[in-house]
């Protein structure tokens, strides 16, 4: 297993290189002056100054030089300050966010993370359990409902689903408002007594013992959570179910039953661990789905996360910001794929022992 993990780790720099090249290639569609937003805040209007900037940040140099400066940035000789350099966390300046892209991501990512944790955890805990139940009681109501639900679910565009949710639960019933939190809890969160531990609102609220803030946050997140996760519910349930069905047909399960093990032990100790292997792959895949999903979901529900910022930037053709988000998402995906592959090695004995 160690060699497998080492081999897998060696892939990481390669993928990082590939992703940066891909994004750098897309940057080349921009004119040198548009690209200067990577290094400077305000792009001057007069031609001389513009030329100076292009010279200073080497925007007219050959590709490989530009790529290198995009990676490490340039140090201003007089002030000793570094400008640009994605390796140092400087993704350029966001026109639509009116702050550096990195700051924009830092401010908004906790909101997105908060949302995705609440969207994923119930799916993994309950969705897998339901899938096992659907397999054990084949052709039962859960089984049929899961199938119908997954076909309808995957045909439903996120934004249509989101708009319908808003129509019923916000406009008609007034149960769940869009946005992040109510004015009342916003005052509490900004007050002195409210300590920030994790920057994730729901967890901070719990740690501060403010259940009113916690419930208010959940109330605002209810619709985005459901919108973000309904497809995952459907897919997790189905994959778990079919994998579990396949495992239950294997001979070693018959052996276990013949040995006289209780049905509970057969299902949860012998069948389920093996049935989880494809589910782990799916978990990695669903990170990709979620990161794409937040763009639409956050926009529909006016939820201040990175997805909404990316959508706003895209609608106003602010390429530097959108590319910054792409880079950030690429990093998250490379890391999460790594975690999934290692996890895969842990759960699958064929990989673990080879």
């Amino acid at each position, binding site marked *: 297993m160690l060699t497998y993990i080492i081999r897998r780790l060696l892939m990481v720099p*390669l*993928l990082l290189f*590939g*992703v940066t*090249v*891909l994004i750098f290639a*897309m940057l080349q*569609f*921009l004119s040198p002056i548009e690209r200067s937003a990577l290094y400077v805040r305000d792009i001057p209007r007069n031609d001389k100054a513009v030329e100076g900037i292009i010279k200073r940040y080497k925007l007219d140099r050959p590709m490989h030089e530009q790529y290198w400066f995009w990676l490490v940035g340039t140090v201003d000789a007089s002030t000793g300050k570094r400008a640009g350099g994605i390796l140092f966390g400087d993704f350029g300046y966001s026109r639509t966010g009116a702050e550096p892209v990195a700051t924009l991501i830092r401010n908004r990512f906790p909101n997105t993370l908060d949302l995705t944790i609440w969207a994923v955890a119930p799916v993994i805990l309950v969705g897998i359990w339901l899938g096992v139940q659907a397999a054990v009681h084949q052709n039962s109501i859960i089984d049929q409902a899961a199938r119908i639900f997954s*076909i*309808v679910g*995957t*045909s*439903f*565009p*996120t*934004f*249509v689903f989101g*708009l*319908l949710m*808003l*129509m019923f639960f*916000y*406009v*008609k019933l007034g149960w769940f408002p*869009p946005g992040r939190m109510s004015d009342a809890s916003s005052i509490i969160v900004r007050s002195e007594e409210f300590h920030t531990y994790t920057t994730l609102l729901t967890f901070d609220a719990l740690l501060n013992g403010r259940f009113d803030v916690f419930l208010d946050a959940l109330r605002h997140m209810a619709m985005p959570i459901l919108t973000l996760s309904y497809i995952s519910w459907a897919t997790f349930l189905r994959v778990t179910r079919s994998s579990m069905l*396949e495992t239950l047909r294997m001979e070693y399960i018959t052996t276990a039953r013949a040995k006289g093990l209780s049905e509970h032990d057969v299902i949860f100790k012998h069948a389920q661990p093996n049935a989880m292997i494809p589910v782990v792959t799916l978990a990695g895949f669903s990170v*990709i*789905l979620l*990161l*794409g*999903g937040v*763009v*639409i979901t956050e*926009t*529909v529900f006016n939820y201040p996360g990175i997805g909404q910022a*990316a*959508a706003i*930037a*895209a*609608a106003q*053709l*602010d*390429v530097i910001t*959108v*590319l910054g*988000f*792409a880079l950030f*998402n*690429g990093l998250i*995906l*490379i890391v999460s*794929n790594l975690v999934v592959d290692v996890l895969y090695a842990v759960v699958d004995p064929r990989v673990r022992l080879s």
Partner: protein
Amino acid sequence: MAETTPSGDNTLLRETVSAREIGRMERFLGPENYRIVMGLLKTPASIAGFILIGFFILIALAAPVIAPPVNAKDPYKIPRDGFKSEPQPMGSLWKTKQPPLPFWWESIMGTDQWTHILGTSQGQYDVFYGIIWGTRTAFRTGLMVTIATFLIGIIVGSISAYYGGWVDNVIMRVVDVFMTLPFILAALILATILTPRIGKSLYPAIIALITFGWMTYARIIRGDILSIKERDYIMAARVIGVKDSRILFRHIIPNAIFPTLVLASLAVGDVVLSFAALSFLGIGTEVGYADWGQVLSFARNWITSLDTYWYIIVWPGLALVMYVMGFNLVGDALRDVLDPRMRGKT
């Protein structure tokens, strides 16, 4: 089987084959592909899917008859009834610039006055017209993206599989890199970059969806070719000295392509979902282009009064969901048919 029959006398072989009636269709497609087609035609879910797809094809073909355009040269522009921003309810009268009446109108509606059957959205764009012509947009974008991604996928996948070694390794790592960005975000970026350069139209989004959509096909066809490459008849072709390119194009690809082809034809629905998502975010076509995502995006400004203006999301939303569901129903049945454990059963 050839070894078990003595040469010169292959009655046994002939009997085994003729035991089953082989239809023209089966001979044309080959037994494996024939099984896939028959499997799809026998499942109730996929029949329902085919009916839905057929229904939308009819609407797309008959669009000029169902909702005649005001300007025949530019039918994808949704006609506007004035410029007021507030949506008008279903069945309200058409006041300015009435488009020509379709032939079926008077006999069904009993009036010669155009009404907004499904209401108007923000800016007085007619929702009904948008849905009908949006069907054409859905098929156009779906087909263009699917055909292009399919071709790219086939070319890249077969080069990768046939040459193997370092070529395969490099290509597959490139595929990995392309898959590292979330699809919708990657498409969003490229469309954002392209829009100011080639203008607002269908193309920025289409090019973006193609650029980040070919990888799955490349992977699938690669896998299929790798398994077919090892078959005896390919070895036989090599032994008698057939050229590489001829083996690839005449013997391998035709035998490997079918599952990918079927998968691709079903992706027409998925492409439309991504396309609608992009145009919902305001990327792609200009305002007022007959496209379902575009019509839906008008609703974004009327969230607080959606109980009154429900028709601006329910109707285009329904069209979109039904369209995609048609393809998904067939796709779901296809997954069962393609499942290797089902092989040999019909």
